[in-house]
């Protein structure tokens, strides 16, 4: 992050409480930058870090991380050249093919992603996609249910990072594979909603290669004074656009070589 923290400790705690309240009560709030227009990306990660510490103190378990804003188009739109990251806890995990409750979310959308499970620790800076692949235990398909706690899913980078990069729920499943057995750049994916194709793409849509997104995530973690321990579950970013879901919908993501992963949604 080429920025530094400008918010006072009190302001960080205030904003963290505001985000935590919005996440827990599933209410939309104004963008944080409306009150703090000078907020920097470093401030946003300070809020996200505080949010993570609060959840961990409440007994949530950190299971991994996710990369967001991983397509060139989205990064250009947000005026950034690196993805955003967010943390994942056990409370966000949902089993494959389960019924996912939507009443505790604001305006959920689904994306399909290649997820990595690490077999070795990774530490930036200077982490490369080759380092990521060497440290990868296996890959699997995943559905991420993102949710912005800001009005109308409208946000800026500073607000969205403070809101844990819109992390809400995730489902890993399908078929686990060794990364070495696959070309992770050219995996095709079809996202179906209620039996109709809703979005399509190939994994190179994520920064040219999903491992590239994980490498950038590890380097951002280094700036935050964190590393990626073995066993971490890491989602590399949406291959397709995010598709809105409502109660009664069923989604399934079909991946080349990785099988499929699905979920249904209830009120």
């Amino acid at each position, binding site marked *: 992050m080429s920025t530094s923290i400008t918010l006072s400790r009190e302001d960080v705690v205030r904003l963290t409480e505001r985000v935590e309240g919005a996440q827990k009560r599933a209410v939309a709030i104004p963008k944080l930058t409306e009150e703090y227009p000078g907020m920097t990306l470093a401030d946003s990660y300070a809020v996200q870090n505080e949010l993570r510490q609060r959840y961990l103190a409440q007994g949530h378990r950190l299971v991994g991380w996710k990369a967001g804003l991983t397509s060139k188009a989205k990064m250009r739109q947000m005026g950034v050249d690196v993805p955003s990251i967010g943390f994942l806890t056990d409370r966000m995990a949902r089993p494959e093919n389960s019924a996912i409750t939507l009443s505790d979310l604001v305006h959920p959308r689904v994306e399909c992603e290649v997820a990595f499970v690490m077999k070795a620790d990774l530490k930036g800076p200077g982490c490369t996609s080759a380092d990521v692949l060497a440290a990868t235990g296996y890959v699997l398909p995943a559905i991420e249910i993102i949710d912005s706690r800001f009005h109308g899913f409208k946000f800026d980078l500073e607000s969205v990072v403070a809101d844990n990069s819109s992390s809400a729920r995730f489902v890993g499943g399908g078929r686990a594979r060794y990364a070495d057995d696959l070309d992770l750049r050219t995996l095709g994916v079809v996202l179906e909603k209620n039996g109709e194709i809703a979005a399509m793409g190939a*994994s190179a849509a994520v920064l040219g290669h999903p491992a590239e997104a994980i490498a950038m995530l590890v380097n951002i973690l280094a700036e935050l004074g964190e590393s990626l321990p073995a066993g971490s579950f890491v989602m590399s970013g949406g291959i397709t656009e995010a598709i809105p879901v409502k109660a009664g919908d069923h989604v399934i993501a079909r991946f080349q070589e990785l099988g499929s992963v699905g979920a249904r949604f209830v009120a």
Partner: protein
Amino acid sequence: MTLDQINAHGDALYDAFLARRPVPPLLARVPDITIVDAYRIQERFVARRLAAGETIVGKKIGATSRPVQELLGVFQPDFGMLTSAMVHVDGDTVDLSRLIQPKAEAELAFVLKDDLKGPGVTAMDVIHATDHVRPCFEIVDSRITDWAIKIQDTVADNASCGVYVLGEAKGDPRRLDITLAGMVVEKNGEVAATGVGAAVQGSPANAVAWLANTLGELGIPFKAGEVILSGSQSALIPVVDGDELVCTVGGLGSCRVRFSGKAAA
């Protein structure tokens, strides 16, 4: 339409093709033109090319994705003829000055080992009759001004076919998952588009089955050895002098093409 009218429109498209000077949309001039009329005009346009020494080497399927169908106002694909003058091989440089308003799209090409005779052909028959599939580019082009096409215009204009580039990589559709195989298109080293087989009628084999059945009804032969371009899996990519495109199909391989010169429009 009378035969004279059909021939006049087909000849006008052939002249537009030769002179690289597009004509206004047919639909604007003949508001009640049907798709059947349009295929008869295509037949004339192609017959003129064959009379000039070209031969038919295969077929292309167009309008296979929902966004393109919505644009054209149809809910079915269309087809055109591939001729010997359109053929390029992997790594070739395509001379844009031969074209009017070209754009590239990445596809899966099927090469048949058995004749396919519709009606009644299913996707399973297509896989059975396929020798191999290859990554390929179709460089589409329109002899209609500013690509202002509806379905009748593109059908009459040989489904907007320009030239095509057949990759060297060969895949067996009984080994390759043609429905879920990813498609990555890079332009000058950067990812320009991604897609997947399912973008084409749910599976490229469905599009080829549609073609076999449609040709069967029309009595047009569909022979072993023919190349079938099954429909675009990517967005249309504009190309200019100096551009290089590479498309890679997951589990299959790549096809590469360069462009030189300046298109007419």
